[in-house]
């Protein structure tokens, strides 16, 4: 199966259990629709699973996946760190009393003002991937620790990051040399094999090549490198195949086991932690038959919570609360644009206006990439452990 097949598979889950269905309906009754319902317990479970799967790896939550204050608070309470990439994310962390010391700034390309803002906030770890970017750190060289991002293309990743960021692996020694010349300390390497990886083969390959480069470098009289950032790529289970993160990480664990004990290994998980912690509840607003196919119009779509279907190439598992004989159907979003289709050619029972559709695994890169198109109201974000009165 090719990578595209694997992730464009649209899963329609069996009808929701009666108790769950009641709860979804009650939430909509109390808080309206559409909703993004966040369950901190699921986040804690995911964090614990990854923690166990990657012991001794510093976990820095990729804030961009779901930049919500409730999520930040939970990660902070679990003693996690934060991977930030913008002044806005910095501001969010500051509001939640997360000090800069617990963050790493991972955007490879920055304005000088962004470097200064991040330093003022207290982030001192930065990522670079080219000479121009290295030069930007010359004035701050006494203060910062730099990670050099190298690129490895993943054959199994859905979203390939190696095209836009990361220096070619063969270029890395040259950049390390240049950094030494201008007095900027590169404390380690970082890589991103891509998102939603099928297996950890690319991670292992990248770990081994980075380790080899670091060992070679550390055998010279240059200050030793001691940090390896293995990025993200830990998958969410959109296809509902039952991803076993422990099994996924086993080869990574074994590759990391070969590294010197005094190196610090860090990772930047986002999707794996938050995707299953959020469900989208959306309501059928209208129904129409077009050429023998039943169209259901929802109050949330690809310009809103389902934006990840466009930007992130995700297909979220969907679920109805109603049973019965199914027919070929389309789920359309609320905007005027014809691209605003949540799902096509799926088998659904007959629904009527007011029925709910539940989107699962919708925490990562969903609300984060929503647009203002049509000025439709955003799905309301609810924390199940801190529901408001109304």
């Amino acid at each position: 199966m090719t990578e595209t097949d694997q992730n464009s598979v649209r899963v329609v889950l069996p009808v929701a259990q009666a108790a769950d269905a009641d709860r979804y309906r009650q939430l909509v009754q109390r808080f309206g629709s559409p909703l993004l319902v966040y369950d901190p317990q699921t986040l804690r479970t995911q964090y614990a699973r990854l923690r166990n799967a990657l012991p001794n790896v510093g976990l820095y939550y990729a804030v961009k996946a779901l930049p919500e204050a409730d999520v930040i608070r939970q990660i902070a309470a679990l003693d996690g760190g934060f991977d930030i990439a913008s002044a806005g994310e910095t501001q969010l962390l500051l509001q939640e009393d997360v000090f800069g010391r617990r963050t790493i700034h991972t955007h490879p390309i920055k304005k000088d003002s962004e470097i200064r803002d991040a330093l003022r906030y207290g982030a001192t770890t930065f990522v670079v991937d080219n000479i121009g970017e290295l030069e930007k750190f010359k004035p701050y060289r006494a203060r910062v620790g730099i990670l050099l991002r190298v690129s490895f293309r993943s054959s199994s990743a859905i979203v390939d990051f190696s095209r836009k960021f990361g220096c070619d692996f063969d270029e890395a020694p040259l950049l390390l040399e240049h950094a030494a010349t201008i007095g900027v300390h590169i404390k380690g390497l970082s890589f991103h094999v891509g998102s939603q990886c099928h297996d950890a083969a690319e991670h292992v390959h990248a770990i081994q090549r980075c380790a080899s480069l670091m060992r070679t470098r550390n055998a010279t009289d240059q200050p030793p490198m001691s940090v390896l950032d293995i990025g993200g790529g830990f998958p969410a289970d959109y296809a509902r195949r039952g991803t076993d993160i422990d099994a996924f990480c086993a080869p990574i664990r074994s590759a990391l086991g070969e590294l010197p004990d005094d190196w610090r290994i860090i990772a930047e998980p986002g999707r794996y932690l938050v995707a299953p912690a959020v469900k989208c509840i959306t309501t059928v607003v209208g129904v129409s038959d077009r050429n023998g196919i039943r169209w259901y119009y929802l109050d949330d779509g690809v310009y809103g919570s389902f934006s990840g279907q466009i930007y992130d190439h995700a297909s979220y598992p969907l679920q109805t609360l109603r049973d019965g004989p199914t027919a070929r159907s389309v789920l359309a979003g609320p905007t005027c644009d014809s691209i605003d289709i949540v799902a096509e050619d799926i088998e659904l029972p007959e629904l009527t206006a007011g029925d709910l559709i539940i989107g699962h695994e919708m925490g990562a890169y969903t609300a984060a990439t929503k647009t203002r198109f049509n000025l439709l109201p955003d799905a309301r974000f609810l924390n199940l452990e801190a529901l408001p009165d109304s």
Partner: protein
Amino acid sequence: MSDFEETLYDSVAQKFRIDKLYFEDKTEHQHLMIFHNAALGRVMTLDGVVQTTEADEFVYHEMMAHVPLLAHERAEQVLIIGGGDGGMLREVIKHPVTHVTQVEIDLSVVEMAKQYLPNHSAGAFDDPRLNLVIDDGMAFVQNTDQQFDVVIVDSTDPLGPGEVKRCLNPGGIVVTQNGVAFFQPDEVTQTYARLRPHFNDVSFYTAAIPTYYGGLMTFGWATDNTELRRQSSATIATRFERLGIDTRFYTPDVHVGAFALPRYIQDCFDRD
């Protein structure tokens, strides 16, 4: 409450227990805290960096005020740039100066310090010799008609050296705070390069302030009178005794010795 861990450097950091948080101001532009620490008393931090503590501020303020004022001998007009916590003013007005202008960019800093760091100013803002100006320091020195005998730059933003020179009486002295040279040698290099074209004598003196991590802090020194930093301990002592003030760090011997620079600091500006 959590600990405060300073974020000046990636690879080393000093950590302070926050025993009680008195004040916090979090905006997009700055993060300011004033808290109590058992060993240091009240601590003020700005953007992850310690600014001042009740326990060790005397080192900084005494050295930055008394060294130029006693070296000058007859300083009457004094300009303080920054120094919103009032500690510098407190030391300056111990001298028989006739007038002090203090330029602080933000009145709220002064108000906040009066409330939460009252021991720093210890009433100094009420001194009748003070003219407190709320303005940008650079703008002030560009536009003022006043002339000063001593200018104390208690601010991290460098002023234009030409502009400072313009409002300095002949033989006047400018002192600047210049960071911890061990970690920030560039600051010494840059300050020297900026001041040298405008003054006959540019150098540095030092003091170790415990919570400015990294050893000796350097203070920039600029004047046209090359004799002022070469006065004997006895000469300084005569003036100091006449003044009859209590100090905890400053002594005439410390004053004279502070101009003796370790080689690594000399190398920052005098590489020949």
